[in-house]
């Protein structure tokens, strides 16, 4: 699903450049539940941005769903993001003046779907995350856990290939964190590839595979002992 070969990325800082990713090789197959662990500055967010087509790499190859990503303009990137990727952010990133239902329906709007149809689909996904009765609430009227559930529903609504979660529990307490992780697990069980970035050990432990990143290189890549670890990774 996601295949990365000798990926390099550096950022210019004044006259120097900061070499963030130093030749990463990573292969994530369809249906995997992977977490990227690393302290801040390890390059994990950069990796997520590149995988999420929010940023471009300098060198190496990136295949998304078998398609080589190169020379992407913003329009193509937007279409690919909409079609293949679902994002979950640490700070939820819901649009403040839209209610839960409209937030979930937004990616479908950018697919050009009609209002009634996309609201119907959005409601199904809200139901899936257990927030059907909160559909007409604004984000400010929802708790942190509820907001993240709405964000999960929004990530799922286009039926993407990969869910990219950037510190999905970073702003949540441990109980809600756990319930959000359970939700992600459930999604994964249904066959969705889930790609989580975290610096919390216990969150990473809940995934099937942990890739540890330090100073721009992968230092370990191992499977966990989770009981639902049926699919075997490389």
């Amino acid at each position, binding site marked *: 699903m996601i295949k990365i070969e000798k990926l390099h990325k550096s950022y210019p800082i004044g006259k120097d450049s900061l070499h963030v990713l130093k030749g990463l090789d990573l292969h994530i197959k369809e249906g995997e539940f992977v977490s990227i662990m690393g302290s801040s500055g390890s390059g994990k967010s950069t990796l997520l941005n590149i995988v999420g087509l929010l940023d471009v790499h300098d060198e190496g190859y990136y295949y998304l769903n078998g398609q080589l990503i190169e020379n992407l303009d913003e329009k193509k990137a937007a279409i690919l993001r909409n079609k293949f990727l679902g994002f979950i952010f640490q700070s939820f990133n819901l649009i403040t*003046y839209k209610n839960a239902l409209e937030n979930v329906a937004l990616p479908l709007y950018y697919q050009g779907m009609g209002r009634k149809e996309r609201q119907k689909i959005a409601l199904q996904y809200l139901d899936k995350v257990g927030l059907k009765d909160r559909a007409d609430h604004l984000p400010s009227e929802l708790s942190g856990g509820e907001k993240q559930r709405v964000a999960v529903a929004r990530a799922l609504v286009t039926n993407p290939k990969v869910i990219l979660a950037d510190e999905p529990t970073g702003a949540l307490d441990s109980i809600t964190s756990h319930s959000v992780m359970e939700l992600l697990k459930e999604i994964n069980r249904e066959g969705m590839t889930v790609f989580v970035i975290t610096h919390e050990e216990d969150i990473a432990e809940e995934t099937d595979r942990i890739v540890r990143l330090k100073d721009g290189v992968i230092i370990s890549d191992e499977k966990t002992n989770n009981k639902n670890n049926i699919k075997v990774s490389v």
Partner: protein
Amino acid sequence: MKFLFDNDTWQEIFESVRKNKMRTIITIIGVMWGIFLLVVLLGAAKGVENKFNNLFGNFATNSVFVWAQSTSKPFKGFQEGKSLTLKISDVDNIRKEIKGLEFVVPRYRTQALVVNNFKTGNFGIFGDYPELDKVEKKELVYGRFINDNDINENKKVCVIEEEIYKQLFDKDEYPIGQYIKINNINYNVIGMYKRSNVGGGGPQGNIHIPFTTFQQVYNMGDRVGWMMITGKPEYNISQIEADVKLLLRNLHKVHPEDERAFGSFNLGEAFAKFMGFLTGMQFLTWFVGIATLIAGVFAIGNILLITVKERTKEIGIRRALGAKPWEVKRQIILESVFLTSVAGALGIISGGFILMIIDTTIGQGEDSVLTNPTVDIPVILIAAVTLVVLGTLIGLIPAQTAVSIKPIEALREE
């Protein structure tokens, strides 16, 4: 175009406007003021134009005054500096020789002491034919103008201007049939007319007596003071002016290229010049109005730029969710066009309203400054289209800013 009718499109515009109420209102006022000025200024200019058209409407604009001066070139044995006088025969010759004439009206003028009982004044006295009333329309309040009978019988009658009535008569006194003394000769007042704004004569007011009476009383012989010549509408008055002067030089044995011998004042040209001035005024109005509009539209561009900066994160989210750059752009451009259109509509309505007030307060009656201050619908349409085009163009700037922010940078912003 489908997005124009999409609920979400408009919902987002209203949200954006709602979140920046104060700034939105202030910027809308900026554009409104621009188009308001444009409408009011254009309306006022139109009012002035209408007013002058009304004034000149009483006056044949394709007319020229001709009078005699002195020669500037020696010719046929005469020294330069020979003084010239127009003759009655010149009038007949002009009528005979020049094509395209409507009227040739010879006139006299002098200044005289006029007495009515104990009231006196020094006024301009004109010797006139009935045709004057056709060239320089007199709005009679009482009585009539000079007629052919007065001319034929050299009657001692006079037509006075309202100003003179005010100076020589008591209030509410009926002037017709009264006698006034001009140079100690009694004249019967047969008519009184309203002050006209153009034409010869001083601010004191004019008195008209029959041409033949003037000739006799002031011993003019076959001399003529000056002539008013009007051409038919389809003839060029400047050509007539040149033809008449050439004929006169010929008749008076003056060098054909002697420009000083006969003086003339072309009212048609003066009128054209004045119309040119009005056109200039309109141009200025457009210039000021459009410049103000542009300033206002820039203000809208500015507010949108700030709004875009504030919405950086939201735009980032949208783009992460699959909004194409063009979709982000058109949203902001539409917002700009929407704001300018609302402001424009308000400006046009308030401008029209002010013109209505101007019309009812100072636009009515004879002494009004303006007549029917209006703005043509096509002009309004042009202004509105200009506004929308400017709104679109200015919207491109914040729109470009919005899409030039990478989604990753936008999302990073906390």
